[in-house]
């Protein structure tokens, strides 16, 4: 990264730029770097769950396959499509922000929030079915086949991973809704839309994580 050759002697006059920064460009770069580092921590956060999953599955492959067959693939598949679509609407929202299209931005953000809520709603229905089928560990778990304990372990991980992911979706919805309100108040401009950009990156990452959660929980030995 090249060091800037000059910078103004003291705090700048631009109100949109915080006093510790020299200019809007530096502020934007810093925010971007910051959010990417944060996303790296998020990836590692989920990494623990993936590691716990990998090690437990390697030890009990058959129980995990049996557990996976009991998950609700139609709902989860639909949910994956919903989340991928919400990622599209978010990307289009960021695009609108960059080009100063305020109404389009608000619209896309609203649609993203709606899709996010749809994801959570479908998830809730899925949990409801799991509950009715007595698949909730510790609370109500009944399973007649072999290795019932290990199947329960699979469902423990299933609820833990999807639960933590759903929490991230919920936080994302909150952030996007806030951004949408800000956008409707005309806070953003092509020169300043960092919050939209940053929230978008977060939302896409939640999508990326789901892309790994989906096959490892729902797709083991369906054949």
């Amino acid at each position: 990264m090249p060091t800037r050759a000059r910078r103004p002697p003291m705090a700048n006059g631009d109100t949109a730029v915080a006093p510790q920064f020299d200019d809007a460009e530096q502020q934007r770069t810093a925010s971007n770097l910051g959010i990417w580092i944060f996303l790296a921590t998020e990836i590692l956060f989920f990494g623990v769950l993936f590691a716990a999953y990998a090690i437990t599955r390697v030890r009990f492959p058959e129980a995990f396959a049996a557990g996976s067959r009991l998950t609700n693939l139609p709902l989860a598949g639909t949910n994956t499509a919903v989340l991928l679509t919400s990622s599209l609407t978010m990307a289009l929202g960021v695009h609108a922000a960059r080009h100063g299209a305020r109404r389009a931005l608000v619209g896309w953000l609203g649609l993203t929030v709606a899709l996010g809520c749809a994801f959570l709603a479908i998830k809730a229905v899925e949990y409801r079915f799991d509950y009715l089928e007595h698949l909730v560990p510790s609370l109500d778990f009944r399973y007649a086949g072999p290795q019932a304990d290990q199947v329960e372990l699979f469902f423990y991980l299933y609820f833990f991973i999807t639960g933590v992911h759903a929490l991230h979706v919920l936080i994302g919805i909150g952030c996007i809704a806030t951004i949408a309100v800000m956008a409707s108040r005309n806070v953003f401009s092509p020169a300043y839309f960092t919050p939209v950009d940053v929230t978008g990156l977060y939302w896409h990452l939640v999508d990326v994580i789901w892309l790994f959660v989906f096959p490892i929980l729902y797709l083991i030995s369906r054949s």
Partner: protein
Amino acid sequence: MTNRADTRPMVYILVWLVLLALLVVTVGSAYLSLGWANTPLNLAISVTQAALVMLFSMHLRSAHPLMKIIAVIGFFGIALLITLSLFDVLTR
């Protein structure tokens, strides 16, 4: 590093279509009996999908190399954690 090329909306839509197609492929492949190859195939598709999202929707394609490194570092950490602890479990 923020001076990245603008992506046209059409590109996002194309990427979205590819992602959905890959979703169909990965779900479909789960119903084929491929033995040990099922999971690696599913994961390969996941990696492709994730790469598409990160490169296009998250603009990594045109981002500063530093961002690319940081984006990869998290996954590298997971790989390290899983590889070395699995090595223990599998050789116990």
